[in-house]
């Protein structure tokens, strides 16, 4: 019995001793103390920032949460002695420099707080106007104090760093700011970005689908660099305001977002320049050019070269009828769009010259039912319920067969089509390939 006690005592002592040691056997979360890590991170970041031949592109955002301003592309060249040269061409530059490329040298510092903070701690003409507490609606022409300004930050808390990218967060307002190592000189970057922006945005079509193939939302107003995310273009129930920075290859949102199961932040123009695709290709952004084609208020003229024999014959007969009505009239084209004059219709439109010099035109139209069954598709239909506009009615009242001929022409087009534009961001012509019935045709402005 006593032996058992001794053995038990030995086992207990050994267990306690080993248990006391076991806590030292856990894997360390960090190899260094917090102070050392911050110090070494500062040294590392200093090296990263300084060793950039073309400096850095700073994708700068302001404010907290809902975007009030667009994202701004600033440029930074860091030097070892604490000097930084910042550049930009944004609209809040002062002293008559708004929208003009401007460089300004000032100071930066890596300060050690709870983490590492990159601070631009003397005034800089390029960056500090975003921080200055003056009314943004009056700036830069007038500097009215309002105590808040654009809610920009000059103290950037470093969230992560690599050789090519430093992600920061504004210390006061929380906006995410990204520094990415520049791969070209700043002026080239500005020019390339401008070219890309002009390629994918314009004032005519400024709404975009964002889709993962299942769910679709809309970006409205991308051209401004601050746009609305909504479930539909007009009268949306939910609207988020998002800021982005344009890049030479696309654009990048301030924050990571999700659609369905997919996460995205940056979009790149794809090879055939038909859409912008996210990092993993799962999410696409493309312009609502199909709506533009269908709802275009002018007339898309059909390419007569692609007419079928039947269509060509109908076209010739309409032309002859028109000449019968008035010797000076000459049929110019048949197109799809909206007629002008009294009781205008959306449909198949005849455009004709009204003088022999062919300097003046008029049009007459037959209503079509034009729908978009799916994105990038168009369906055309024409029944007895589709009415003529006033001009076409007048032709009929004068005994002309033009309306009847036009209805026959419309019948050749009834069907559903896949649309392929010549430009996916601002098309000037679209080729329509029939999916069910109809005949292929091309329309253009």
């Amino acid at each position, binding site marked *: 019995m006593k032996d058992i006690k*001794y053995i038990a005592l030995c086992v207990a002592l050994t267990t306690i*001793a080993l248990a006391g040691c076991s806590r030292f056997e856990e894997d360390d979360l960090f190899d260094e103390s917090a102070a050392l890590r911050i110090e070494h991170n500062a040294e590392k970041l200093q090296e990263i920032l300084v060793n950039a031949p073309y400096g850095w592109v700073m994708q700068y955002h302001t404010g907290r949460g809902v975007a009030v301003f667009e994202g701004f592309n600033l440029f930074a060249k860091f030097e070892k002695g604490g000097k930084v040269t910042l550049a930009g061409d944004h609209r809040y530059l002062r002293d008559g420099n708004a929208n003009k490329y401007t460089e300004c040298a000032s100071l930066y510092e890596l300060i050690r707080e709870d983490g590492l903070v990159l601070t631009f701690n003397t005034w800089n003409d390029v960056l500090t106007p975003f921080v200055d507490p003056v009314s943004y609606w009056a700036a830069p022409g007038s500097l009215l104090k309002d105590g808040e300004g654009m809610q920009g930050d000059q103290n950037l808390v470093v969230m992560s760093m690599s050789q090519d990218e430093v992600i920061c967060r504004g210390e006061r307002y929380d906006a995410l700011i990204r520094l990415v190592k520049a791969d070209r000189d700043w002026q080239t970057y500005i020019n390339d970005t401008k070219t890309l922006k002009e390629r994918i945005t314009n004032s005519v079509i400024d709404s975009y689908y964002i889709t993962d193939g299942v769910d679709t939302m809309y970006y409205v107003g991308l051209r401004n660099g601050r746009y609305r995310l909504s479930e539909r273009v007009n009268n949306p129930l939910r609207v988020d305001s998002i800021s982005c920075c344009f890049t030479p290859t696309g654009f990048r949102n301030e924050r990571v977002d999700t659609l369905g199961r997919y996460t995205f932040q940056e979009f790149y123009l794809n090879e055939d320049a038909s859409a912008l695709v996210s990092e993993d290709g799962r999410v696409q952004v493309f312009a609502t050019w199909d709506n533009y084609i269908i709802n275009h208020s002018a007339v898309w003229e059909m390419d007569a070269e692609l007419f079928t024999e039947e269509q060509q014959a109908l076209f010739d007969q309409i032309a002859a009828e028109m000449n019968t009505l008035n010797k000076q009239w000459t049929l110019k084209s048949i197109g799809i769009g909206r007629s002008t004059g009294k009781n205008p219709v959306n449909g198949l439109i005849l455009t004709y010259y009204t003088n022999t010099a062919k300097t003046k035109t008029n049009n007459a139209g037959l209503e079509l039912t034009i729908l978009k069954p799916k994105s990038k598709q168009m369906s055309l239909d024409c029944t007895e319920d589709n009415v003529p506009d006033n001009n076409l009615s007048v032709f009929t009242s004068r005994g002309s067969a033009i309306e009847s001929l036009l209805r026959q022409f419309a019948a050749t087009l009834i069907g559903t089509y896949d649309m392929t534009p010549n430009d996916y961001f601002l098309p000037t012509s679209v080729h329509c390939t029939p999916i069910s019935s109809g005949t292929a045709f091309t329309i253009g402005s």
Partner: protein
Amino acid sequence: MHELKLRKEMKKLIYIIGIAVATVTISSCRGDDNFTDSIFDTSVPAVDETKATYPFDLWLYENFVVPYNVDVKYRFDLSASDLNFQLTPADYNRSQLLAHFIRYLFYDVYTKYAGDDFMKKYGPRIFHFIGSSGYSPTTGTEVLGTASGGVKITLYKINEMKPYSEGVTYSGDDVNILNENYFHTMHHEFSHVLHQTKSYPVTFGQVTSGSYDPINWQDRDSCWTHQHGYVTHYASSATYEDFVETLSCIITDTKYRWMNRIINAAAMGVRQGDKEDILELIDSLDIDLDAPDSHWNDFTLYEESEYNDQTGEYESTERYVLDEHRLLGYQVVNKEATAYVAQYKYKVLRKFTSFKDDFLPWVEISSDEELTGINSLLKKLDIATKWYKENWGLYAFTLRREVVERQNNINDYLQNDVTIYELK
């Protein structure tokens, strides 16, 4: 026997195990830490030659750190700033210029009259420069400077200063802006440091004890504050602010402002003996009453009346105001609520062509206890300057004279003694 032997063996075994366990435990607790030298580079000199700001940092070291043990923080420090305000960093060029002016118009002045150790002993330890003002959108007020326990003076609005460029000159207006934005604040804050070291007499606060208002002082206009015995409206917020404002105004306020203040404060009447004291004050302020083209020999006083929306009549506010104190832009809804009308109306009371020979004889001598104005102002000036002299050996009017003389020579100073460095 066998059992005894076994027990002894067991005991021995336990001892061995115990020693082994203790050894393992102790050795495992010893750890592998190998303490090295400081993680910080202690070989860095006081002024880092590798910095882009080295020439200016060296100048600061020689002109502030060594003689006064002062750290001039021209780099914005968010964690050391007032987070109630959205603030911007100061411009590097302007920071350098202001540092020179602080040396020339502040440190050198006190050092000249109070000795080498005075500023080293009582001066602030830190200056923090802020580019923008501490603007509060709710009250519409701007913080121009703050002092933290005599240790740190924070100066705002640096970026509104005229910047340095080759051949730059400072006009009288530029100097006035320097005084209003920085040096008035600095003397104000430094006076706080002094009275926090040696208390000022309680009698100072008793002179106008009934009318301090720490909440709504900013709603008082200059005319009101002068006619109630205060140098500025901020002085009417609390006794200690009144005290330091009084000293700071002596040192930095222009002749123009002082004469307006005196006329305003005396217009409603003075006590017996006040007129002589006024002339003495004016003399101490180095104001030449006979100076040509001076506004104090060509001014108008107005009687003020305010619209009463109950009666629809303008009723006297019982105060006389100078041209610049007329509140011409204010409007109120009329009695019938049909239109806006001017809130105040002004009628010319009298034009004066000479302060000494026209205005002063015209001012009535009164024994009205309600009448505070110039009498209170004179009393407080007397208490504050005596305290300054007795406790610190400083004569406020002498400091003023020195500051004014230096301001008059500021362009020579700019040309000969100021070097502004570019970032290298």
